Each structure stands twice: as C-alpha cells, then as structure tokens.
C-alpha cells in the first residue's frame, strides 16, 4: 500500500483538479486546455455552484485549486481550512449590465442616479436571489445606491443563479434583468442596454485559492491564470483581468 500511495502522489503531480464555479465553465475549460497543452499537466475540472464546491471540500475533496464566484464561499473554504487562505486572490473581474430581450422596445438605458429605473420597464426584474447569489447581491447593492431598491423589491424575480436570471429575460418572462456583462455578451437573445457603473457596488471579483493539499502544480496553474496568455482568454470571454495577485479574502 505504501507504493500505492507513492504512485498516487506521483500521479497527482501530472494531474491537477480544479473546482470552479459553474459560471466560469467555458472560460475555465479554455484556460485549462491551454494550460494542459503548455505544461502537460492534465487538468480535471469540476463545475458546480461555489457553495456546492465549498461543501465538497469541507467533506474531504482535495482539489488543487478552488475558483469561487462568491467571496462568501471563498471565505468559508478558507476558514474551514480546505482552501489555503495564504494563497488566495481574485483572478478576474466582471461587471453588471441591464439586459432586455432582443426585440424589446427599450433601446438604451444610461444607468445613473438620475435615471428613473423602475419606470423604464414593465413587470418583473430578473436578478439572482440576493440572499445567496453573488450577482444578485451586487445588483441589490447597485439598486440601493440608485435609491430604488425598496421600490423594486416587490418586482424582483429572484432566481437561483445569475444564469437563470438571464434565461428568464431570454424567454421574455421579464422585460429587464440584471446580469453579468460576460453572460449578456454571450447570449444572442438579449441585449445589454446599460452598464452599472462599478461605483454602485463592490467590485465583482472571482477568487482563486490553492487547495489544502495543492502542490506546486497548483501554484503553477494559479500563476498561469494571471499570465498574459490567460489574460487574453479572460478578455476574450468578456472578463476584466486583474494585474497582480492581491490580498487574501480573509483579510478583507
């Protein structure tokens, strides 16, 4: 069994598992593929919601890297010890946009405190559930900053994740939704009619952390995520990049 375990660790040197938020599925797949061809290390990706991933780590899963869309779950993972709080930093940024179905009468919506946002659309507003969906939390913050949160709250269609918020707009269930710019960009059935200025909410950041048992490969992949090559891919998928690894989430 001793040799067995050695084999296992040997193997784990050529293979790294990455737990990534499902909303990063396409970009991370691309990044992983590139990294794999570059380094020869096989990247096994596990996409699920940030919360599910954090719980899986808590229950003994040992990925090399944990990529969360939610600072909250990153914090949870770090406190739990399943993510290395010393090697934990944002890797990409996103922004919020207001989207409408392609055929909507709304053309553009210059989002600013002067805009009468609630009256600019009919029916419900699709946002991720602010109770647990990060995009929803940012949206709520932004709406608070705009001073129309209270007014709009009864009109929220709170969805289980930001992807669903986009979906209901795509299907015309809601005339308006607040989603990530990256998602809006990819959907052919919606138009982004306005961008929420970053000043209205906390910065929207995706965090990456090294797993509890992440080895040198994890470090190498984390580094890769900040490389120029990676930056190109991030941007291609609509994300904004972050130049330097920054502070740990736990210090935040």
């Amino acid at each position, binding site marked *: 069994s001793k040799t067995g375990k050695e084999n296992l660790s040997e193997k784990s040197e050529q293979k790294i598992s990455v737990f990534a938020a499902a909303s990063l599925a396409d970009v991370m797949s691309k990044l992983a593929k590139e990294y794999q061809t570059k380094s020869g290390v096989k990247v096994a990706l596990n996409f699920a*919601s940030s*919360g599910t991933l*954090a*719980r899986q780590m808590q229950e003994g899963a040992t990925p090399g890297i944990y990529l969360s869309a939610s600072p*909250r*779950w990153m*914090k*949870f993972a770090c406190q739990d010890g399943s993510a290395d709080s010393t090697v934990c930093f944002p890797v990409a940024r996103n922004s919020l946009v207001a989207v409408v179905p392609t055929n909507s009468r709304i053309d553009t919506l210059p989002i600013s405190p002067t805009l009468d946002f609630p009256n600019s659309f009919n029916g*419900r507003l699709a946002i991720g*559930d602010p*109770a*647990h*969906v990060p995009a929803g939390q940012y949206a709520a913050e932004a709406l608070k900053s705009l001073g129309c949160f209270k007014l709009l709250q009864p009109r929220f*269609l*709170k*969805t*289980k994740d930001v992807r*669903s918020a986009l*979906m*209901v707009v795509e*299907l*015309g*269930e809601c005339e308006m939704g607040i989603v990530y710019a990256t998602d809006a960009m990819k959907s052919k059935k919606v138009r982004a009619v306005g961008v929420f200025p970053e000043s209205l909410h906390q910065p929207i950041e995706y965090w990456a952390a090294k797993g509890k048992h992440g080895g040198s490969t994890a470090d190498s992949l984390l580094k890769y995520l900040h490389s120029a090559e990676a930056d190109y891919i991030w941007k291609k998928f609509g994300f904004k990049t972050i130049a330097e690894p920054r502070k740990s989430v736990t210090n935040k």
Partner: protein
Amino acid sequence: MTDLFNFTASDLSAISLSLKVAIWSSIIALPFAIAIGWFLARNHFRGKALLEGVIHLPLVLPPVVTGYLLLIILGTNGVLGKWLYDLTGIRIAFSFYAALLASVVVSFPLITRSIRLAIELVDEKYEEAARTLGASRVKTFLSITLPMASPGIISGFILGFARSLGEFGATITFAGNIEGETQTLPLAVYSYMQVPGQDTATFRLVMISVLLSLLAMIVAEFLNRRAIKRSRK
C-alpha cells in the same frame, strides 16, 4: 441545538406550501395517470413505445431541463403560454400553479407506471365476466379493474406524493423561488444551503422532510393494507 425547532415564518410557509403542492399535484395527476396507465396496460398499438418515451421524459431529463422546457412552452412567450395569456390574461410561470404543474409533470411517469403495472396484473377474465353481466367498458373499468388495481393506485399516489415533496429542479426553474408562493421545502433548503453557516436551519428543514416522508408512509401503509386485502384474489 435549541433553535432546531425555531421555525421562521418562511420555514412554515415552505412546509405548508410543500404539502399543498404535493397533495394537489398527486390528486391532479391521478386521473390522468389512471387514464394513461389503463390505456398503456390494455392496448397494444404502433408507436406505444413513443408515447411511453414521452411520458417518461420528465424522469429521464434532468429536472432543470424539464423546468426549462415547461418555461419554453408555458412561459409568457411560450407556445401555449402566450395563447393562454392572450386569452385569459393568466400567467402560469412563476406562480403557485407553476409549482403545481412542475410537480405534476415530474411525478406523472411514476404514478402512471405504478397504475399501469397494477392494471396489467389484473386478470382480464374478471373484466370479461363483468361484460357478460352487462357492464359497459367504463363501468367495468370503474367497478372491476380500478378497485382490483387499487394497490397500484395507492403505490402510485405515494410515489407521486413523495416525488413532489422532493421536487426541486423543475420547480425552481419554472416557478421560481418565491417565498410564500413557490418556495417549497426543497427550495427553502436550497436557499439555506447556498449560504455558509446555516447548517442548523438546513438540518431543521431536512428533518421536516424526513418526518413528512415517515408520515406519508404510515398513511400509505394503512391504506395499502386495506387495498391489498380488498383486491386479493
């Protein structure tokens, strides 16, 4: 642990909503399931497998997809949904009725299968006898086939009920997670689970689910024993 029984208002509404959805959806699905179950049990026709495939789809597809398909069909812009909205002004999606419908659709194959199985196991000789006594097809079905298949109906009802209690994916997609209207127990559990540190609250609701399951089984066991006795050959 003391707050294990500290139900919040939203917990309570989730519990009652869950029960309401589960009971109603089983009741609504039952007559359709009986009709289709009988049809499948007693008729052989070309394309039967096709019909069955369609009926089993909600089982084969991930519930979220089922919910998505429902939304496409019955959403405000959906084929049927648009027509319904134009006609009556009613929007089904993201309402209590959506939760109900999602439950019905998802539990339907289970109920149908049970009933069909039980009907298949009813000896047609009794139906023949009823017919020589002057009973119409409908009368024969109601007075002979159905009572003799009653264990299957109960079994189907239980399966449907239980499945409804646990229904999550289709509901959250088609009906949304609206507290007091569509937030059933599984959706409430989900909401709790999405936030770190709410383990107690989650556990509380899971325990409620477990208790409901036990309760349903006790009732089912009681009914079933009677049905088996009654249908015994």
